[in-house]
């Protein structure tokens, strides 16, 4: 099987470490030799203490939830109008404007909160689509193997060989800048990568004995997939999904910089960063606040994804 990969949702803007790792690992795993398990008398006694998720993890979860809520409730919250062009331009943080105003006099804080909407929708929406398509296919493919697997896998290689950012630019500029269109396109392009990752996670599970036992008992494929396989790959799905969300948000930011994300009138973090570029020397706040917000959000997502992966990954070295 030819190994031609390139993550769909990557760019010099922060190709995701784990996504690349996952794809690279797939290549290595496919040539790795099976390991034998040996039980020792120690295994039967008290189980080793499970690695706790830690307060920091829950802190990140809280932050992510806050951002999502802010995005959803932006219109309802008592904020200033984000598009209102006011008189006090480029003012720093004050009581009236918590984070200051930008060069058009618009309230930065309000724009920040409203802008979260774009990032959240694009991020979670497109990954949801990608998982629905790529994740499901990956699970089926890794489970069934055989001809189905070969065909779909080959297809994913072709898609991944394609410079996705280019395609994204082309499609978005031609089709339209609406948020839902962008979400769908990014979602479709994230599918091949998620396919490979989920497939790699499914392979070791599908060969385990309890799956074999379920099949031997006559369970239908669909039942086995949902009852046996999926619960075991669910942690991997969640953790890679979160990381994917972070990657997509970065991608949207890149698109905004090329001027082809959502309409610049609509506040989004990417747009705000883009606008702030030209004002960097006059009013750095325009850039700094969305940068900080985005950085923290991405950090939280990455941390959650990583922590979950560590927590559920039995093969990780415990020292």
């Amino acid at each position, binding site marked *: 099987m030819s190994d031609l990969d390139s993550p769909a949702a990557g760019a010099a803007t922060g190709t995701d470490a784990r996504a690349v790792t996952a794809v690279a690992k797939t290549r290595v795993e496919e040539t790795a030799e099976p390991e034998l398990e040996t039980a*020792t*008398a*120690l295994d*039967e*006694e*008290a189980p*080793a*203490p499970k690695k706790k998720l830690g307060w920091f993890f829950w802190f990140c979860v809280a932050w992510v939830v806050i951002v999502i809520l802010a995005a959803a409730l932006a219109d309802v919250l008592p904020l200033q109008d984000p598009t209102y062009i006011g008189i006090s331009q480029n003012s720093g943080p004050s009581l009236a404007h918590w984070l200051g105003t930008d060069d058009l006099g618009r309230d930065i804080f309000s724009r920040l909160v409203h802008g979260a909407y774009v990032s959240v929708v694009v991020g979670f929406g497109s990954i949801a689509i990608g998982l629905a398509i790529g994740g499901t296919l990956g699970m089926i493919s890794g489970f069934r193997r055989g001809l189905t697997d070969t065909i779909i896998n080959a297809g994913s290689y072709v898609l991944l060989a394609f410079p996705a950012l280019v395609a994204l630019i082309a499609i978005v500029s031609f089709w339209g800048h609406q948020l839902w269109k962008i979400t769908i396109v990014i979602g479709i392009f994230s599918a091949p990568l998620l396919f490979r990752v989920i497939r790699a996670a499914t392979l070791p599970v599908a060969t385990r004995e309890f799956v074999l036992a379920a099949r031997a008992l006559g369970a239908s494929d669909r039942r086995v997939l949902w009852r046996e396989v999926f619960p075991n790959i669910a942690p991997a799905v969640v953790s890679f999904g979160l990381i994917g969300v972070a990657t997509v948000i970065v991608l949207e930011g890149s698109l905004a910089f090329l001027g082809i994300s959502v309409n610049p009138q609509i506040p989004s973090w990417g747009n705000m960063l883009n606008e702030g570029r030209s004002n960097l020397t006059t009013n750095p706040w325009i850039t700094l606040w969305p940068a900080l917000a985005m950085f923290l959000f991405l950090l939280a997502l990455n941390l959650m994804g990583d922590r979950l992966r560590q927590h559920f990954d039995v093969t990780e070295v*415990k*020292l």
Partner: protein
Amino acid sequence: MTPDGQPRHGRSHLSPDDYPSEADEERVLLEVRDLRTTFRTARGPLRAVDGVSLSLDRGKTLGVVGESGSGKTVLSRSIMGLLPLQGVERSGSVLFEGRELVGLPPKQLRSLWGARISMVFQDPMTSLNPVVRIGRQITEPLREHLDMDKAEAKATAIALLSQVGIPSPEERFSAYPFQLSGGMRQRVMMAVALACAPRLLLADEPTTGLDVTVQAQILDLLTSLQEERNMAMILVTHDLGVVATRTDDIAVMYAGHIVEQAPTKTLFSAMAMPYTEALLESIPRLADPSHTRLSAIEGRPPNLLSLPKGCPFSPRCRYAKDVCFEQRPPLVPAPEPEHLFACWFPLGGRRGPTPAASSEPAMDGDQSVIDGQRGASPAASAPAEQSAP
């Protein structure tokens, strides 16, 4: 190259005469006293080796026998010092050639490893680096310890390969491990271990996982190489059959302790421990009629994290009495020379030690009192001394 232009063949071509004879050097090569190795695990401290003492002379072979989990592998690693860097504690004394190894700084330990003490590992599949050619894996210690240059090391390595019985050694020199069979890989491992002519070889289950036919070959090879070089060897295995004919002395381990120790002949002719007896019985015999039930030792090896009070073998021992579950028997000498055992009711009608302040009256002809052995501690009362049988 020697000064007159003759190629040097390396140390493997030295004959036994080149090695210092026993008279020249101290006879006792290795002296271990009360060695303890404890692993710090998430579930508590694990005492893998719990107070082992033994000694070994030059050129002699000691067999260490036990089931998985008895601590025999950890023992061999502990003697050498080849333990993980973190989470392990080692105490006691290991005197090698008069030098204390416990507490030796890593750099000095490293100068001994591969040069004076070597180890042959159990699994040749995983113990050889799969992406490095075997030739290089052999020349590494040569160049590191003996300062050989590339050509000299290569010549020596090839000679070593043929010594361990690998055909076409020149070609095999540049082979990768996966290109060799299991038996050949094990031979390569031996070549690596013997490259610098060490004084002591620790062979950790060298034939487990090999074909039965190959096992005998490998063991014979080990013995002949050892005789050739007057090298001492500790042969660790779970298979009594392996040690029966190839060792001078045998130590039987259970749950981190030595429970019986004797010259080989004595062990087989006058064994004292029920455990040793059970081990021997579990070896299937060709002479038995077919479909004879294999006699296995009941139960499983003990959990080292929560050892039972008393004798660690008691849950599985067919002769166990109440006192066996209460108190741990000390390691005491038997009437035969250099024979030690740890049992309240040893086999063969001999007398076992008296348990301390027990409410049990003396029972059976198997139990009686040896004067002065009351409550003796294992290590101090029985410094193991072995001389040529």
